[in-house]
């Protein structure tokens, strides 16, 4: 059986494989569109013993992949203790950081003590002016460049993540080129998301139509293979990834997220708590939550809804969690998904030359 089959089976049989833990919402940058719900900071954070118990539970459930993120995960006072415990339990550890604190000596300590599979850093532009405008910390771009070079020199696998905005859309080609020069892959999310509390104000930074088109052209140029169009590739890949399962995604099936205050969520995007670690162990929540059943049923309904749209539905990159944040309804199409569906419909109407 292939790994892809294993993943599909985990969706179907609700075998938890991936966990994402937001250690803290504290951060050393001040990004304009940060999606964290900072009003939650009034609540009680998980302590070190609770974090260790959580990791023990995840290991007992045979979870393979553990993402440590934030806020900025390195801002958590027990980051290294938690990371070291994760390593001892045999997780494939993924760190999602803004990269600002990852100086050479810190990166070296991470290699030695945590041995992560990958470190993902945030990349907001191809120039200091654009990147620093986003982070609102002067010098953050130059420091990130140095840190990425140092991390790759240490043998760390580094990936850059970016969100396409109207501030960086004109630099998208240069961002891909810069990432290539640094020797790291760049993944761009073309969609600015609402804050986790439903505040839509970050959407004012969304890329323009022209910026989205430029981004699509850049991606298509880099992704086109074997004479097939990008849409065909995306649709074919997504169809194959969902063949053999009746769900749209693994939220609440093989995937779970935990916020710094112990709220257990079906996915980092789907901010509907299914339990809280201050009251229950994760193993109890995973095995006994009625809300999880509702989440899983919703992912089936999302699949049915999108299948009815054909290839444009596959191209929608629909996220039930984003739909819930936008509309309070995990099955409601939200503007960015609608736009992608329309764009895909327009493309399939074009004659094939």
């Amino acid at each position, binding site marked *: 059986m292939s790994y892809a089959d294993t993943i599909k089976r985990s969706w179907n049989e609700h075998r938890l494989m991936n966990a994402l833990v937001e250690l803290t919402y504290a951060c050393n940058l001040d990004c304009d569109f940060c999606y964290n719900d900072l009003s939650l900071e009034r609540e009680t954070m998980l302590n070190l013993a609770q974090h260790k118990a959580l990791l023990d539970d995840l290991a007992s459930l045979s979870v*393979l992949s553990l993402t440590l993120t934030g806020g900025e995960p390195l801002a958590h006072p027990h980051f290294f203790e938690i990371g070291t415990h994760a390593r001892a339990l045999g997780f494939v550890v993924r760190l999602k950081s803004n990269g600002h604190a990852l100086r050479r000596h810190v990166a070296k300590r991470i290699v030695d003590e945590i041995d992560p599979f990958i470190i993902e850093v945030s990349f907001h532009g191809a120039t200091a002016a654009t990147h620093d405008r986003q982070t609102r910390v002067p010098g953050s771009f130059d420091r990130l460049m140095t840190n990425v070079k140092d991390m790759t020199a240490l043998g760390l696998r580094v990936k850059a993540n970016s969100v396409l905005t109207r501030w960086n859309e004109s630099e998208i080609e240069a961002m891909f080129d810069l990432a290539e020069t640094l020797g790291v892959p760049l993944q761009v999310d073309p969609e600015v998301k609402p804050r986790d509390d439903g505040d839509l104000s970050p959407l004012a930074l969304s890329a323009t139509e022209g910026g989205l088109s430029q981004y699509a052209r850049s991606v298509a140029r880099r992704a086109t293979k074997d004479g097939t169009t990008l849409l065909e590739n995306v649709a074919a890949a997504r169809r194959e990834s969902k063949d053999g399962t009746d769900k749209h995604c693994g939220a609440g099936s093989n995937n779970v997220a935990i916020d710094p205050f112990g709220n257990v969520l079906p996915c980092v995007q789907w901010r509907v708590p299914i339990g809280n670690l201050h009251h229950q162990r994760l193993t109890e929540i995973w095995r006994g939550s009625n809300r999880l059943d509702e989440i899983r049923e919703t992912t089936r309904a999302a699949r049915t809804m999108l299948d009815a749209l054909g290839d444009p539905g596959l191209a929608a990159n629909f996220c039930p969690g984003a739909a819930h944040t936008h509309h309070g309804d995990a099955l409601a199409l939200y503007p960015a998904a609608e736009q992608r569906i329309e764009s895909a419909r327009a493309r399939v109407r074009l004659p094939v030359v």
Partner: protein
Amino acid sequence: MMSTPAPNPHYRVDPHARFRVLDGEGIFVLQKAGEVLVVNAVGAFIVERLERDMPLDEIIREVSRRYDVDDARAGADARALIDSLLEAGAIQES
């Protein structure tokens, strides 16, 4: 020059690899190579025992009992698996 293997060697999961048993199957993530390796239920049974520092001949006897095959067949299969896992960098001799 390769060293001669101990007569009854012990193996362990490579420090840069990660191993989990999911629903009977074994999954290795080879962190340096960025690859995933899936082994079947018998493979997972063997690797779980390697992780417990069990010597190879004892593992072979357990495989033989558990899967009702003779020791020669169990030994050949176990050694073939171990050779392929060593070559992939999933395990190392301890």
